[in-house]
């Protein structure tokens, strides 16, 4: 297994994530409806808005998964942070990076993963909108475009929820 690599700008990335003021906040319908929609659209048992913090990935919204966080080093989303395109793992058992990952050989038994990076206007990648299945899958270009569009909606919500520093200071 390859541990999730750490981006060179991780300190700044984490700062951008913290400034969203969203970590450890309660579930919100505006994210949950997109995640539920994604799960139904792709017919997958698990869909997540995952935010990659220093040591763990924390799920702002989750469909089909009881855990609210997992360790960053074994996370698929941790790998996705460094990808330019959607990270697509058709069959984790056939991928050296993930074949013996605890999330693959144990619950939730991930076989398929597609994670669309959530990039803030600052350029920092804070996490992914991801869909997960327990069986191997493929996505075609239209599927990828749909996942990317849903990801864009999540990012819009993330950014809309932030209060610019100047506004906050002047309030």
């Amino acid at each position: 297994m390859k541990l999730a690599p750490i981006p060179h700008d991780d300190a700044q990335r984490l700062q951008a994530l913290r400034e969203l003021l969203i970590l450890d906040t309660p579930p919100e319908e505006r994210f949950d409806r997109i995640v539920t929609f994604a799960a139904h659209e792709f017919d997958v048992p698990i869909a997540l808005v995952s935010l990659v913090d220093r040591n763990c990935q924390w799920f702002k919204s989750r469909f089909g998964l009881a855990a609210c966080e997992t360790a960053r080093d074994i996370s698929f989303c941790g790998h996705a942070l460094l990808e330019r395109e959607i990270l697509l793992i058709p069959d984790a058992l056939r991928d050296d990076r993930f074949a013996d990952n605890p999330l693959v050989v144990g619950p939730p038994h991930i076989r398929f993963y597609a994670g669309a990076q959530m990039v803030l206007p600052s350029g920092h990648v804070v996490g992914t909108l991801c869909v997960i299945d327990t069986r191997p899958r493929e996505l075609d270009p239209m599927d990828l475009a749909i996942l990317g569009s849903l990801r864009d909606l999540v990012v819009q919500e993330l950014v809309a929820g932030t209060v610019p520093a100047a506004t906050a200071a002047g309030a």
Partner: protein
Amino acid sequence: MARGKLNLLLVEPQWLIRSTVVAVGRSLDLPRIDEAASIETATQRLAGTRYDGLLLSLDEREQALALLDKLRAGGFACPAQVPVVVMSADCDIDLARRMKQCDVSRVLLKPFKVKTVLESVDGIVGEARRRKTA
């Protein structure tokens, strides 16, 4: 797949479906898809724009059917026979008969996948081209 400069109108009250269809259409270089969240907005758009096809939700059933009747009567800026795909939560015999009378190309039953709507755009494009050259 060459699609030219066709222009479609999507009438759908659900924001997630509407936003995703329009965004994916843009990213995949599908025909331009304008959006309307209500029949009222759709009526205004159809009055001013010559659309090549219509994706019409029947969530506002009576108003949507009235709009369809007006479209087929030539009451909007587009040709009366532009292809129409309808999206509905149900379809009984009466509605199916009505759709046939209105020359509706396809009825998509809700809940459907966004991908199904996008794939139906291909059908609209082909039909719009056939009708233009007929």
